[in-house]
């Protein structure tokens, strides 16, 4: 314990705050991730199949989603949080704390993930889709058995990349009031000039990202052929 006390005096002095901040970050990550993951797959898939020449070509839907994605992606996340403030309050009942963070987090990351997913599906060999159509498979079967099934490895890769970007979003929203490691590093490390706290937050995030990356790599490898 002495080494830890020596290296991280302020962390050890008040360990509950540190543990609490880790839990908040995990909470934000675990609550929002399933949602942006599913939404991103849906939007990315819709973009890929409604594009000109796609399996379910639909100009209106494609143009709408395409423009919306571009618009959302061009707004910096901090500004997006402010912009969404009233809507967040309406949806979540509050705009602060972990609860108030979920909605802007999802809105912030989904366009990024959707684009990644879209590029994965656009990279699929179109002849695979054509041969599935020639086999007499219907559009839903093709979505499930070709688009999704054949993209597991690439989807694991872009999900990992998105998780890492998502972590920085969590830190940003944490620092402006939602809590978590971002808030911890900002409030105790930066404002009170306690460098050991900032370093502890960085190490924790590093461990976190390493775990995500390892899981992503394992899933990707298992499905590569």
């Amino acid at each position, binding site marked *: 314990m002495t080494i830890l006390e020596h290296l991280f005096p302020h962390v050890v002095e008040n360990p509950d705050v540190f543990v609490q901040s880790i839990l908040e970050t995990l909470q934000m990550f675990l609550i929002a991730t399933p949602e942006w993951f599913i939404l991103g797959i849906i939007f990315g898939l819709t973009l890929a199949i409604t594009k000109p020449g796609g399996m379910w070509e639909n100009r209106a839907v494609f143009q709408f989603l395409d423009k919306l994605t571009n618009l959302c992606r061009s707004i910096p996340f901090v500004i997006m949080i402010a912009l969404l403030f009233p809507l967040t309050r309406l949806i979540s009942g509050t705009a602060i704390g972990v609860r108030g963070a979920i909605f802007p987090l999802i809105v912030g990351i989904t366009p990024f993930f959707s684009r990644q997913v879209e590029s994965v599906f656009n990279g699929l*060999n179109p002849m*695979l889709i*054509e*041969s599935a*159509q*020639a*086999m007499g498979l219907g559009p839903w*079967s093709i979505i499930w058995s070709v688009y999704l*099934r054949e993209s597991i*490895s690439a989807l694991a890769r872009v999900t990992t990349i998105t998780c890492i970007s998502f972590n920085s979003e969590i830190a940003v929203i944490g620092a402006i009031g939602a809590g978590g490691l971002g808030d911890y590093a900002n409030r105790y490390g930066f404002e009170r000039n306690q460098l050991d706290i900032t370093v502890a937050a960085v190490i924790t995030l590093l461990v976190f990202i390493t775990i995500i990356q390892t899981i992503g790599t394992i899933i990707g490898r298992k499905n590569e052929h």
Partner: protein
Amino acid sequence: MGNAIIEITQLSKRYDTPEGAYTALHDVNLNIEEGSIFGIIGLSGAGKSTLVRCINGLEPISGGTINVLGQSIPDLSAKELRQLRKSISMVFQQYNLMPSRTVEGNVALALRHSGLSSAEKRDKTRKLLSLVGLEQHAQSHPSQLSGGQQQRVAIARALANNPRILLLDEATSALDPDTTKTILELVKRLNRELHLTIIVVTHQMDVVKSICTHVAVIDHGTIVEQGEAFDVFANPQAELTRRFVGDYTGLSHVIDVLRSGGAAAGLDPDGQLIHMSYANKTVAEGLVSAVTEQFHVTVNILFASLDIVDGYPLGSIVAQYSGDPEHIKQALDYLRGKGIRIATVHPESKASASTNAAASITKEHIA
């Protein structure tokens, strides 16, 4: 045999491109008989793939009619079309197997919605894989197989729903000659044993020659010649067909040699180059030597070949005739009378031009 399983009349297909409408097919008329192996041959970009994609409705047509198994393709709903596609399978040049699935999984994919239980599916998959000789590779992934093996998997997959028609779009074009041969043998067996009607799209005359009963030659989106494979081979009419046959038999090569230096080949500048095609080898060779004596002409044989087309022998001789022109004419008339097709070779052109008097060779000439 006898009834048309695919009937196409005045089919046209236009693609809308940024540069305007592009006509890929026009006025295509085809009748494909049940049980036949029908070759569609043409150069790259001629419209072959477009034509087969119209047959299974992957490509909407712009005009004309197209009936497959008694159903009018353009009039079918999406659902009816999917149902019909179970009876019209397609095999592609690039195999198009699903990389993430095992060999078995690829075949089983075609059985989705087949109503079979998973045990029945497994059973059927195994049977299909043993039909194409790949039962021991059931658990492999496509990337672990050779091109020929992958194409066999694609064929097994294509057979999963007991189709009546098999469309092969350049199915052997990515394979080496030996593998091509084994795949073609398999195709022929499927035609015989399962009574499948097979459409073979290719740019290789070799493929047509070895398995097709019928052939259509397509050039710039239109059919320039069609008929029984033997007849088209023996009596090519269209310029493109003559080039295909000439390239295949080696005749084009001979003409190239003659063009680049007839004198060096020891040719008589006044002699006539004649291409003789015949169906009966022994008779033909006997006749050629007989006319030498009978009509007092000199026959200098430059090139001879023998082929088997759709199971029938077809021979070809290029020779130079010298002597009295009147005698040569009599000699050629005599040969025509014996069922030998005579065509004058013009070294300037890529193929032997059939003279207006060219007799046709039919399988009946095979004694």
